[in-house]
């Protein structure tokens, strides 16, 4: 179980209190978190033992939070909207990346699909309850394709790759690094960057258990510093960052460098702009993106109802970034 339950946390809630261990959930995505992880910065900067757990996509992270198994994790805006709507008890405190072409709708060259409309009757795989799922459904909607006319299959990214190779599926909406492998014999029909232009914004964000953040704001602040450090490295020495990514994701360095460019990395300061977090006084667009996502999921009957905008405003918390920037 998470450290939220460890005896120490109950006794001392002072600024200096330290948990025995921090459980961090991560995913295979070429961003700042992998860089920092490969560089071993978490252990050294947080000053406590760090336990990493890998998740294939964001939905399992939600389950892990619900069962209080982790403290900090990366999820997409889609699972984050689900989690906030369902009251899992975490808040968004960091944006790892805004998703661009890193998540795309890939079709197999051999499948003879040239437009989204051609997807009717085809098998499209996507990890359900993920940013890619949200993007896919929106892409279909924009083209006026009824999702029930397409055979949409739930698969985790590694399974998508296996099914793709076996020829079990015709298309997939998925992210790097799996996406990169699919495109070896496929092409993209649309991508999250293009969808963002039409207002379908998706991002990978950091979430932290509220309970944990209250007890150890210090740790959260230090976590942000690590992310900023990774961001700085990427700015100053993309080559070194790509090398770390290549190692972390088990791909080659050139691919890694390319894939970083398909995501938008934001500095701590940028994140406080109106487009994203805003300030703790005046919430930015991120809360609206989350609300819009939740509303869409309700429309899709994935969740039964979405709370009002206030809940999503409270679901994002800029104070940690603000504190870290001081």
């Amino acid at each position, binding site marked *: 179980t998470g450290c939220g339950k460890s005896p120490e946390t109950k006794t001392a809630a002072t600024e200096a209190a330290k948990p025995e261990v921090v459980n961090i959930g991560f995913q295979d995505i070429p961003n700042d978190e992998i860089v920092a992880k490969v560089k071993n910065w978490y252990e050294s900067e947080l000053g406590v033992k760090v336990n990493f757990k890998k998740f294939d996509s964001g939905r399992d992270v939600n389950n892990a939070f619900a069962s209080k198994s982790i403290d900090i994790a990366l999820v997409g805006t889609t699972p984050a909207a*689900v*989690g906030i709507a369902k009251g899992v008890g975490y808040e968004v405190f960091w944006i790892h990346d805004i998703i661009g072409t890193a998540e795309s709708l890939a079709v197999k060259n051999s499948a003879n699909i040239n437009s989204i409309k051609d997807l009717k009757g085809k098998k499209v795989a996507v990890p359900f*309850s993920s940013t890619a799922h949200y993007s896919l459904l929106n892409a279909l909607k924009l083209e006026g394709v009824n999702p029930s006319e397409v055979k949409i299959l739930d698969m985790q990214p590694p399974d998508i790759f296996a099914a793709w190779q076996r020829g079990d599926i015709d298309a997939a909406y998925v992210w790097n690094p799996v996406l990169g492998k699919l495109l070896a014999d496929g092409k993209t029909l649309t991508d999250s960057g293009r969808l963002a232009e039409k207002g379908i914004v998706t991002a990978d964000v950091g979430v932290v258990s509220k309970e944990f953040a209250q007890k150890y704001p210090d740790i959260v602040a230090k976590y942000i510093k690590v992310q900023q450090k990774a961001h700085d490295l990427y700015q100053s020495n993309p080559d070194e960052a790509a090398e770390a990514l290549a190692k972390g994701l088990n791909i080659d360095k050139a691919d890694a460098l390319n894939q970083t460019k398909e995501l938008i990395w934001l500095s701590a300061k940028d994140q406080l702009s109106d487009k994203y977090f805003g300030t703790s006084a005046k919430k930015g667009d991120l809360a609206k993106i989350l609300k819009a996502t939740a509303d869409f999921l309700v429309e899709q009957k994935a969740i039964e109802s979405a709370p009002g905008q206030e809940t999503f405003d409270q679901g994002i918390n800029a104070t940690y970034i603000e504190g870290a920037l001081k």
Partner: protein
Amino acid sequence: MNIAYFVRKQVTVERLLTASTVILLLLLWYTLTELKLVSDIVVPSPYKVVTSFLEIARSGYKDNSLLVHLGDSLVRLITSFLLVVITAIPLGLVCGYNSKARAIVDPLIEFYRPLPPLAYYTLLVLWMGIENSSKIALLYLAGFAPVYLSCVAGVQKIKKDYIDGAYTLGANSRQIFFHVVFPACLPDIFIGLRTAIGVAYTTLVAAEMVAAVTGIGWMVLDASKFLRSDIIFVGIFIMGITGILLDGMIRTIESKVIPWKGKE
């Protein structure tokens, strides 16, 4: 005091206890959720479960009605079960009757039987694709072994006198197979079938894990991705009830087909 009277009275006390256990549990569930002692995500309230059930019953779950989900699961289950019936019973009886046939078939069964179905499901998917055929194959394999094994055991425990007696009455060994071995094994065949449908049912969710878009098992798995524990509960209740009904059905058929069971 009259024994029968005593027995009846005891039954009543037991019934009462059973009923109160069930009621107590429902009450516990109700208060636990009513007082918000546990999060709604972890344990949904009874009220929520009921409304979700009604909602699903009315307008389905994700593009398909509840009947389609249940139906698709049952089609997978029953197809594989029928395949088991038409293959495992004859094979099991023949292998029980003929030690040479058994020597050929047994090692295969003995090897795959203890394997976790999910372990070979990965292979089945590789071999047969992600469509219904691999799902049915999985359920088939899960159900095959119990029926085969209980047929073999059934033949082997037939009283030797049944066979010897038939010879002294003029039957040949083919006649004995059809007129003695087969009916004598019916009780064991049914034991096997009941185990098989239980095991296949237990494997159903695993089968619907890969690339399904319908099925009660898929519904439960899908609901868990959106933290819909109310739907998980609904699915589990439906499965519990369906499972009991399926077993009851076979038992009813059994009592029709083998009226002599337990009375020999």
